[in-house]
Each structure stands twice: as structure tokens, then as C-alpha cells.
């Protein structure tokens, strides 16, 4: 990938550009040197590079931001990083730029494709799911025991297919940077809602859920955080033997809220502990068939926690159980605001 580089002084006047930057802007070095950075990068039209570094936390810590640049009278999207460095004749700035037009076009194409596939799959599924629900309910006539069994299998697998479509769409939403709601959220409320959602599943699986010590408030999207805890609890139940205990807790430590979900299942081999957060990864290939699930729950959870500027992981002892955890900045120590949360882009850029 070709990186355009522009060097300026403190006043934002361009001192030099590399050949890649000439190609990026569709002009030659002689037309750029001596002019203000704002003529090619609208973000600098009314500010110096130094002020941009002061004002933009992401740039200040060496991160990249998406912005725009001018070429032949039109703007195009770029990924930009900005660095200040001392020289014998004063401080200078380097702006590195990458044209992301093609990547954005591909992203749009992918979103359109996912949307189209979603529609084309959901329409026939609506008929299948609806028919099965009506038949099973007995609304259309009496159902024999054998018929009920067959209908139950068909219904369960339709639900599985639907979950898969929903999870793929959810991944896409998070990757596309769908805005999160940011408000103070009590972890006690999040955990209570999540436990309520999985209680029936736990009862059916003969697994007990214990809410241990629960405390802490974070700034985040309550629905999304409930979704994470539901994913972790559902996984814990799924991989627990009958009669086992799943324990959920949250504690405040050093300005962070740590939520843990511990099970007494088979545990996860060391080499798999990072991979379980990858989309469609299953520790055992037969898990998806035997235990249900799409293989996307943990990947979605990681994306949600990343968007909250938190961390997620797992500790495990094979044969004894696993403890999945995530940490989020405590609300009063977070220093986050709604803007900061919205800025947390979905793809880690």
C-alpha cells in the first residue's frame, strides 16, 4: 500500500511531499511546496497541525483517523496520521495519508450484499417459520405426538438458521460502526436482565445460575452489554454438565468494572483461548451441531466490548471449567462521554 507523506512547519506550510503524495493529490511537488496544508486537506483549512494534535486525542496518541483530501476539484476519503518531531530549525509535522476510496467502496458493496442476502433468506424463512409455528400451536388442527416431534426438529433448525442470519447481520452492524447509546448503566441491572433471559435455558439444561457479588456502573449501551452477558452465560450453560453451577459477578477494581462468568465445564485448551473470539470458531467442530449456536456470539461480544474501549478474555483449566471476563472503565473514572463512545469505530481503525 502506497503511503503519501507531507512535511510541514509549525504554521502548516508544506515543505516537502513524497512521490506517493503527488500521485494522491494528482499534482506535482512544485505546486504544493510553500502552500498551506489546508489546500489539500480540508481538515487543516483553519488550523495548524499542532492544534490538530492538541484537539484530537486519537491523532495525539499516534492513531489514524478517516478524513478527506482534495484531488482535481473533488474530495476523496483518506486515512490519516499526524506526527510532530523536533528538528534543528524547529518543530515539524509529518502527515501520512492513504487513499481508502477502494476500501470504502468494497465496504459498501459488502454491506449491500449482506443486506440483500438477509432479505432473500428472511423471506422464505418467514413462510417456513410461520407455518411451523402455526402447525405446532395446534391452531390449524390436532397434532399427533410423532408429528409434534418432527415439527419441533424443523422449528428448532429454522430458529438456528435465523440466529445465524441475525448474528451475521449483527457483526456487520458493529463492523460498520453503528452508533452505540452511551448512558450510565448499572451492572446489577445488566446482569439481572441477562440472567432473566437465559433462566429458562438454564432450567432446561439443569444448570444453576448464581449471582455472586455484583457492583459497579459503567458508561455504555445497556442493550449491547446485556447481549454480551447473555452470550457469556448461554455459552457457560451450554458447556456445563447437568447439575453444575454457573456463577456471574461484577467487581470494581482500580477504576475498572470487571464482570466474570465462571462455569464448571470441560475448559478450553490453551491454544484455543484466543481463537474462541474469532468468528465461526468452535473448540470442537461438532459443537455447533450438538450444542447449537452460530460461532459468532463471542466474536460479537468482543466487538461490543472493543467499542466500549474495554477488554474481554478467558481463563480456563481443562477439565475444571472456564471463566470468561470483560472489563470496562467505571463510569466515574471513565472520562468517557457520548462523543468518545461514538468515536470508537467498529473496525478498530
Amino acid at each position, binding site marked *: 500500500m502506497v503511503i503519501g507523506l507531507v512535511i510541514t512547519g509549525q504554521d502548516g506550510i508544506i515543505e516537502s511531499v513524497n512521490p506517493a503524495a503527488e500521485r494522491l493529490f494528482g499534482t506535482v511537488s512544485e505546486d504544493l511546496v510553500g502552500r498551506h496544508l489546508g489546500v489539500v486537506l480540508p481538515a487543516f483549512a483553519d488550523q495548524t497541525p499542532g492544534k490538530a494534535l492538541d484537539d484530537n486525542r486519537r491523532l495525539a496518541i499516534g492513531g489514524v483517523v478517516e478524513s478527506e483530501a482534495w484531488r482535481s476539484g473533488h474530495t476523496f476519503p483518506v486515512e490519516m496520521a499526524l506526527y510532530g518531531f523536533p528538528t534543528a530549525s524547529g518543530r515539524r509535522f509529518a502527515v501520512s495519508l492513504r487513499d481508502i476510496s477502494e476500501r470504502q467502496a468494497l465496504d459498501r458493496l459488502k454491506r449491500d450484499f449482506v*443486506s440483500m442476502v*438477509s*432479505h432473500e433468506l*428472511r*423471506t*422464505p*424463512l*418467514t*413462510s417456513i*417459520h*410461520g*407455518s411451523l*409455528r*402455526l402447525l405446532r*400451536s395446534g*391452531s*390449524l388442527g390436532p397434532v399427533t405426538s410423532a408429528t409434534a416431534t418432527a415439527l419441533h426438529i424443523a422449528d428448532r433448525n429454522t430458529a438456528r438458521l*435465523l440466529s445465524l442470519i*441475525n448474528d451475521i*447481520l449483527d457483526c*456487520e*452492524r458493529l463492523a460498520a460502526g*453503528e452508533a452505540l447509546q452511551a448512558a450510565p448503566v448499572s451492572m446489577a441491572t445488566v446482569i439481572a436482565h441477562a440472567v432473566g433471559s437465559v433462566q429458562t435455558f438454564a432450567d432446561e439444561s439443569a444448570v444453576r445460575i448464581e449471582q455472586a457479588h455484583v457492583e459497579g456502573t459503567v458508561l455504555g449501551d445497556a442493550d449491547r452489554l446485556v447481549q454480551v452477558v447473555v452470550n457469556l452465560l448461554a455459552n457457560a450453560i451450554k458447556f456445563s454438565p447437568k447439575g453444575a453451577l454457573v456463577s456471574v459477578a461484577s467487581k470494581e477494581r482500580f477504576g475498572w468494572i470487571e464482570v466474570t462468568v465462571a462455569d464448571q465445564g470441560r475448559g478450553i485448551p490453551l491454544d484455543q483461548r484466543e481463537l474462541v473470539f474469532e468468528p465461526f470458531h468452535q473448540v470442537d467442530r461438532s459443537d455447533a451441531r450438538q450444542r447449537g449456536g452460530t460461532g459468532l456470539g463471542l466474536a460479537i461480544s468482543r466487538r461490543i466490548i472493543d467499542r466500549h474501549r474495554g477488554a474481554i478474555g478467558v481463563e480456563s483449566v481443562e477439565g475444571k471449567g472456564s471463566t470468561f471476563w470483560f472489563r470496562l472503565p467505571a463510569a466515574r473514572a471513565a472520562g468517557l462521554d457520548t462523543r468518545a463512545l461514538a468515536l470508537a469505530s467498529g473496525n478498530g481503525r
Partner: protein
Amino acid sequence: MRVLIVDDDDDIRTITRLSLTTVGGLDVVEAADGRAAVDAALCDRPDLILLDVMMPEMDGVQTLAALRSHGPIARIPVVFLTAKALQSEIDRLLSFNVAAVFVKPFDPLTLADRLREVERRIRLAQSPSGALESSRPYS
């Protein structure tokens, strides 16, 4: 309560009809495209219209515009039914000031109740139009 079901997919129309009549005890009329929907609305004067979004020729949004251009049926509440579950699409559809947006697949055992609830809220608000509800895609 009489509901006009508008969907180009015969199977979906059948499931919706069974759901609203056999399970829900509602009265229904059906239309397979936008033009037939306007004719049926003028003729049968439903209390609510359940309108599919993606249809050939006249899509749901165009059909909504056609319904609203006919004085006598312009204020009949419309609920969009869409297979596109992205929030951006739901927000786009709600911006047309419809009563609600339901996402496919719906639960045929509760569809009638959901429509009754929409109708009740509209009556309470004494406003026959207005974006009152958005069904959550995963609810």
C-alpha cells in the same frame, strides 16, 4: 378490526392471513401489489394496512404514497413489514411517519396482538399517523 395485507409473496400472504384470522380472530383482506392495495383500501376501508416493503413495480414506500394521495384512505395507519433488519433501514422506514415497522420473520402467534397494540396506541394518542413504534429486529 379489519387488516389489509399487502405482499407480493403468496406464501407470506397466506401465513399472515392464517395468523390474523385463525389465531388472532381478525378480519382480513389481501392485495398482491401496490395498485391492488389502493383499490382494496378504497373498497374495503380497513382499520390498518400491513404493507410489505420490497415488492416489484410499486414498492412499499411508493404504495404508501399512493394510499396517502387518496383522501378517504390517506389516514389509515400503515405498518411496514420488512425483511431488512438493519437499524438504518428501520429508521428510514419510520421516517415515512408510519405507525410501526415489523421485521420478518414475525411470530404468527402474536402478530394479531401486536397489530391490536399498535391500533390501541394510535387511538390513545388520537393521532392516526405518527411513528409510534419500532419493533426490535431481535425481539
